[in-house]
C-alpha cells in the first residue's frame, strides 16, 4: 500500500461544526452540517460519494453505518462504522484513504461525530472494562500516570504543563469553531482544582459535542482554484490494551505513537524536521509534551523545554496545535482525528480560520488513545505545488 498511497489520495473538501455544548442538536444534525460544508468545499454533491466511513466511539446510536447514511442521504452505498479509542477518526480516514489508493473508489466520504454531552458532564464514561479489575480508571487518571512519572523522572514542576495549556488556549481563542475560546494565565492554570494528580482542570481537554467531515478522492478531482493537498503518509499502530503493565514500560513515551509516526514518515519520505505544522492529540497537556518527543520533534526528555522556549507556538520552529488542540478546540472523540485533517488541510491551503502558520507545506496529524496509549494514528499531508 505504501507505494500506492503517496500523492494518490487527495483531500477534496473539508467541513467541521463548532465543537462545544450542542444540547439542541443530535448526532444526525451535526453530521449533516459537517458533511454539507465538506460537499460545498469540494464542490461536489452527495451523489458523487461512492462509499463512506463513520468514526464514532460511544455506542449511543445503535445504528452502525446507517447513522451516516441517514444523516446525509447515502442509502444504498457501502457505509461502515469505525471505532478505535481516540484514534477513531484517523482510523476512519485510513479506511477511506486505502479505498482510494487501491483504486476501488474515486470519491469517498469520511466523517466523525460524538455527542459526549448526552452522558453528563463529568468526563468520558468508562463502559467496557472488567467490573472488578477495571474499577478506578479514568481517562485523565490514565494519562496522569505519565505526568507523575515525567515530572518525577526529569525533576520538573507542574509549571511545565501550564505552559501548554496557556499556549493552546491562546490559539483556540482565535478559532471560531473552538469549544473554549478564552485565554488563561499561568496563574489560573496553577490554581485550578486537581482532576487527577498532577493534572489540574486546565490540563484536561473538555468533553465536547461535534462533527467533522472530509471528502477523499483522486487528485485530479480536486478543486482547481486552490492548492491540492494529498496524503503523503499514514501510519496506525495498535498495541496491547495494557502497555503500562509491561515490565520496563516507563510511562515516558508511547510506543504506538513512535511506531505509527515512523511508518508515516517512511511512506512520505520525510523526517520530523520537515513538518511545518502539526495537530497532535493534547487530550491532556502531558500528552502534548510526550508526543513532541515520540514524534521525533525533540530529544527524549526535552519536550517540556521545546514548549517552554516557545518553539511550538504558531510563530515558532515547530508550530503545534494552532487550532487550540483538543485542549481548547474540544474533543468529541470520534470527530477529533477528522477535525485535525480539516485543520491541517486549511493550514496548507493558507485558509486557516485561526492562527495561520506561514509557508506551511507539510503537515502532520496525530492521535493516541486507549489505556496506556495503546493505539496511535498519524497522517502526513502535503501541499502539491
Amino acid at each position, binding site marked *: 500500500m505504501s507505494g500506492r498511497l503517496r500523492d494518490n489520495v487527495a483531500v477534496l473538501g473539508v467541513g467541521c461544526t463548532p465543537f462545544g455544548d450542542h444540547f439542541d442538536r443530535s448526532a444526525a444534525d451535526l453530521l449533516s452540517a459537517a458533511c454539507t460544508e465538506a460537499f460545498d468545499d469540494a464542490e461536489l454533491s452527495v451523489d458523487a460519494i461512492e462509499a463512506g466511513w463513520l468514526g464514532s466511539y460511544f455506542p449511543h446510536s445503535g445504528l452502525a453505518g446507517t447513522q451516516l447514511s441517514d444523516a446525509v442521504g447515502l442509502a444504498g452505498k457501502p457505509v461502515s462504522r469505525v471505532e478505535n479509542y481516540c484514534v477513531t477518526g484517523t482510523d476512519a480516514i485510513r479506511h477511506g484513504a486505502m479505498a482510494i489508493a487501491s483504486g476501488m473508489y474515486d470519491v469517498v466520504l469520511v466523517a466523525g461525530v460524538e455527542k459526549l454531552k448526552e452522558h453528563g458532564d463529568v468526563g468520558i*464514561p468508562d463502559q467496557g472494562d472488567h467490573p472488578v479489575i477495571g474499577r478506578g480508571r479514568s481517562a485523565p487518571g490514565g494519562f496522569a500516570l505519565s505526568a507523575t512519572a515525567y515530572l518525577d523522572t526529569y525533576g520538573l514542576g507542574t509549571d511545565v504543563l501550564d505552559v501548554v495549556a496557556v499556549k493552546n488556549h491562546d490559539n483556540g481563542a482565535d478559532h471560531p469553531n473552538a469549544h473554549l475560546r478564552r485565554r488563561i494565565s499561568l496563574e489560573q492554570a496553577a490554581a485550578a482544582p486537581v*482532576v487527577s*494528580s498532577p493534572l489540574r482542570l486546565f490540563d484536561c481537554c473538555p468533553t465536547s459535542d461535534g462533527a467533522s467531515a472530509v471528502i477523499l478522492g483522486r487528485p485530479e478531482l480536486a478543486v482547481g482554484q486552490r492548492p491540492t493537498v494529498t496524503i503523503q503518509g499514514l501510519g496506525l499502530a495498535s498495541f496491547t490494551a495494557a502497555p503500562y503493565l509491561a*515490565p520496563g514500560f516507563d510511562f515516558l513515551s508511547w510506543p504506538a505513537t513512535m511506531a505509527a509516526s515512523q511508518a508515516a514518515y517512511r511512506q512520505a519520505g520525510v523526517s520530523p524536521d520537515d513538518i511545518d505544522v502539526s495537530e497532535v492529540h493534547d487530550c491532556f497537556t502531558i500528552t502534548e509534551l510526550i508526543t513532541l518527543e515520540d514524534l521525533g520533534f525533540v530529544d527524549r526528555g526535552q519536550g517540556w523545554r521545546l514548549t517552554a522556549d516557545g518553539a511550538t507556538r504558531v510563530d515558532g520552529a515547530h508550530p503545534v496545535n494552532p487550532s487550540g488542540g483538543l485542549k481548547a478546540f474540544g474533543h468529541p472523540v470520534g470527530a477529533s482525528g477528522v477535525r485535525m485533517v480539516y485543520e491541517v488541510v486549511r493550514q496548507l491551503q493558507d485558509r486557516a480560520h485561526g492562527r495561520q502558520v506561514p509557508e506551511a507545506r507539510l503537515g502532520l496529524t496525530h492521535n493516541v488513545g486507549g489505556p496506556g496509549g495503546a493505539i496511535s494514528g498519524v497522517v502526513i499531508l502535503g501541499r502539491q505545488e
Partner: protein
Amino acid sequence: MGSGPVGADVTAAELTSVATVRPARRLDLGEVSRFWGRDGRGTLAVVGPDEDAVTMAVAAADRLSDLTEVTTVILARPTVPPGSGDGAAVLATALGLPATVRTFEVTGSDRCFTTALSLAGDIVAADGSTHVLVVVADDSVREAGSAAESTHGHGATAVLVGPNSGAGTLLCVAGRLDPAPDAWQRPDGVRANAGDRFLATAVAPPHLQALVADDPRLRDLAGRATGVHGAASTPKLGATLANQLVAGLPSVGSDAWELGDAGAATAGMILARILGRGQSGEVHLIVAPGSGIDVLAVEVGDGSSVYLPAADVEGERLPYGTYLRSTGQTVVTDAAPTTSPVTMWRDQPATLGLQGARCVGCTRVTYPEPPVCGACGGHDLQPVDMRGSGVAVTATTDHIVAGVNPGTPESPTTMVVVERDGGGRLFLPAIHGYQPSVGARVRTVLRLAHRGGGFRNYYWRVEPSTAATRRKQP
C-alpha cells in the same frame, strides 16, 4: 486437658495464636454529635468505604502465626448484610487455603464468636490433629444519629484453635439460649438490636445465675478465676455483666473501649488482651450476651502468638459525610456494572486469587493471565500468585473517577502501578487515603471493591509495606 465436647463438661482445645485488628479509619464523635445538634466527644474505629467484615477477617487471620494446617474455617458475624454471599469461602480463598478446607458461618447473634469457639473446640476434640481457624468480625452499621452509633465501632479477632499450645487454652464454653432478638438486619442494611442495657440487665442475669447454679465446672472455674469480663458496648455495662457472674474480680481496663466497642468482636478483643497481657496460668471468664448468654473460660498461655494493634497507631479520620455515604445512609445508588455469578466464578483466580502467569518461554509475568504471552506469543503459561510486596512505579489521585467509572467506591481514588517483587505489574487502587510516592514500597491487601449488581465484590488494593507482623504468603 480432657477430651470430648467443649460444652459444659470438658476442656479440649489449645488457642495456638490470636490476633485482633481494628480498622484504620476514625470517626470523630465530636463531628457526629455536632451534625445532630448534640455535644459529644471521642473516637470510633470504623470500616472505611473499601472494608467490611470479610476484609477485616482477612486482615486479622493474616496476622496469625501459621495457617498451613487449617482444615476448617469458621466465620462469625452477628448479621449477614445484603449481597454478602459466602463470606467464609471468600475468607478461605483470600488466605490462600486449599479448596478442600471446610467452611462454616455462624451468625444471628452477638454471641456468634463464643458459639464459633465452642464449635471449634468440639471439632478439635473429635480430631486431635485438626486445626480450626475462627474469625469474628463485626462491621454492623448503626442507625445514623442513634446513641448506638456513638458507641459501636468495628473490629475483628482471629483465633487458631488446634493441638499446638501457644496463646492459651480453651477451658470451656457454657451457655444458655434465650431467643430475645439481639441483632437483626433491617432491609436498609442498618443493624438494629434490642438494646445493650436490656440484654445486660434483663435477659442476662437469670441465665448467669442458672449457669453458676447448674454447672459445677463453671462454678469451679469461677472460684479460681483471676478476672471476669463482660463483652458489652461500654466498660460500665461490661462491668455490670461481669459482676453478675462473679462479683469483685478485676476486668480489662476501660481503655479497651477507647475506640468504641467492636460489636460482636468485642469478646474477641477482650480475649486477645487477656492472652496478650495476662500471666501464664491465669484463668479468665468472658461473659458474652446475645440471644441468651455464653461464658467463655480460658487459661492464659505463654504469651506468644498474640497480635494486638499498637496502642499509638493513628487512624485516618473519616469525614462523617463519607461514612454516611459509604454505609448507604444517604441517597446513593451504586451503579457499578453487575458482576454476574458466572463471571465472578470464572474470574475468581484473577480477582480473589490475584493470579497472573509467567511465560515459560520468555519468563515474562503478566496479570491477569492472558491467552498468549504478550511478549513472545507463547502459549505455555504457568500461574503466579501476584499477592505480596512491590514498588510503586507511578500513581495518580483521581478526583473524578467515581463519577465516570461506576463501582469505584470512593472519591478521590489513588491508582497505583506496582512493579511486583518477583516480576510482573499490577494496576490497583490504594487503600482509602493512601497516596504513595514514586518508589514507595507497597503491598497488596484485600478490600471491598463495590456492591454492584446487589452483591459484594472483593478485590485487592495496596497499602504501605511495613514491618508489622504478617503471615508469610505461601
